[in-house]
């Protein structure tokens, strides 16, 4: 986490720099830094306009001329958490990272930002902090591995990661453990266990586990561990 913070503190906040660290946009990085979830504009709007007749939602959009602003005003209505103009102005003047750090832990907050003349906004929600667990390697694609945890009797994808320092050795094993091939993707026997660590968990309802890991990495190859020992997702 300190590494991430140092990255955010240093240098120009260019899209390329954030993309290099796996973030779609600076706001996402800031939100993750603050231990919160990030929603994209599509999801925000869907949630904000839920239950409104189409004509009413369209009129709201037309009145604001901006989906982010309309969503912010509607979410304020729906969730009893009106967006403060002061906060909007604060973000414009001091930047989203400073605000993310200054904010008390809250369930939900808005970040507005003017980028190239367009206002963007994200909603952030609470999510988990750093942690680690055991996971089993289930697929290999190039130098990356798909790791999974148990849920009930099955395995559920946890995260896709570079194989790290054990890469060459793992690939050598994988060549003899292929169950199926899909182009460069190789499904392998679920028997090699790795210790995975991460910096933050962010909620993502599109994932089977319901969250994404941020700052995840392979810590070690637990050669002696069995699949039965891996975590319940």
């Amino acid at each position, binding site marked *: 986490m300190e590494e991430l913070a140092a990255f955010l503190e240093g240098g120009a906040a260019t899209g390329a720099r954030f993309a290099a660290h796996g973030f779609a946009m600076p706001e996402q990085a800031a939100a993750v830094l603050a231990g919160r979830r990030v929603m994209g504009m599509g999801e925000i709007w869907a949630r904000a306009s839920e239950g*409104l*007749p189409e*004509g*009413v939602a369209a*009129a*709201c959009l037309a*009145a*604001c*001329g*901006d989906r982010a*602003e*309309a969503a912010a*005003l*509607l979410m*304020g*209505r729906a969730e009893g958490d*009106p967006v403060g*103009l002061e906060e*909007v102005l604060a973000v414009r003047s001091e930047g989203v990272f400073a605000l993310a750090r200054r904010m008390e832990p809250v369930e939900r907050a808005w970040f507005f930002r003017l980028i190239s003349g367009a*206002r963007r906004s994200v909603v952030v929600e609470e999510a988990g902090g750093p942690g680690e667990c055991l996971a089993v390697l289930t697929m290999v694609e190039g130098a990356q591995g798909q790791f999974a945890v148990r849920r009930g009797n099955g395995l559920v994808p946890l995260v896709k990661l570079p194989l790290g320092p054990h890469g060459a050795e793992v690939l050598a094993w994988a060549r003899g453990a292929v169950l199926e091939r899909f182009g460069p993707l190789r499904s392998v026997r679920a028997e090699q266990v790795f210790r995975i660590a991460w910096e933050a968990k962010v909620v993502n309802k599109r994932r089977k586990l319901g969250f994404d890991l941020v700052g995840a990495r392979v810590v070690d190859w637990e050669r002696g561990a069995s699949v039965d020992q891996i975590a319940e997702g």
Partner: protein
Amino acid sequence: MDLIERRPEGLYCPAGDFWIDPMRAVPRALVTHGHSDHAARGMGAYLCTTGTLPVIRHRLGKITAEAMAYGERRQIGAVTVSFHPAGHVPGSAQIRVERGGEVWVAAGDYKVEGDALCEAFEPVPCDTFLTETTFGLPIFTWAPEAEVLTAMRDWWAGNAAEGVTSVVLAYSFGKAQRILAGLAGLDLPGPLACHPTVEAVTEVLRAAGYALPATGEVSPGALVIATPQGMASDWALSLGLHRVAAASGWMALAARRKGVDRAFVLSDHADFPGLNAAVEATGAGRVICLHGYREAFALWLRGRGYEAEAW
């Protein structure tokens, strides 16, 4: 036959042969309040509340006008009419029209939340409710007035500490005096002043018995309430170093906040929850939406089981 019809001149009651808030010259006009988009010149005779009469006389000059107290009933033709508080501006009213047990209420402009100046909105049970829908979208939800006025006071205090005059842009009748009355209850960092147009209306209201704080000359550190037109006149040259804020419901929208140093979302109209609450409180099964986002609000109401239409 409907008790109230839509006509080019405005809302017309055929059974009483009068218009409500007409914008074209008609023989007899019932006026909900003193704003110029409701009390226009040129009517043969005006009927309004006792609180509205001084204001429309001030604005329209020599007119033939009569006033009624809130709740007082009068037979006009085949209908009985009465005025009931709307909470919009001093003297503002909803007009109740009754014939043979059927009741229609033309709400004019209204605000459900109380303030330190206006007569509080009174829900009037009716069969058909003609509601304004200036802010009839769910994006419009107002913060409590006390919160907004405290923020205004704090902004003013910050300016006053720098010797800067604070100018708040507001309608000359209603909003301006509401701000004066609301701020008067707070710990103020300096004197209050008004643009001459605002001051003239304020004086009319004082004479009519509304409790309003003293206002003086413009001075550094003062809070001055002015109209946008006033700021475009030579009068603005007397302000010296100043910052400008606007107080309006429209300030909820970012696009409307351009050109001012500070925006305060303060409206004399009901917000979306307020409109819904007012409609529900009347018990009306039929709702007619006027002004603003009338189509969208009618659509919203239809989804909630009302017979609603936009005029």
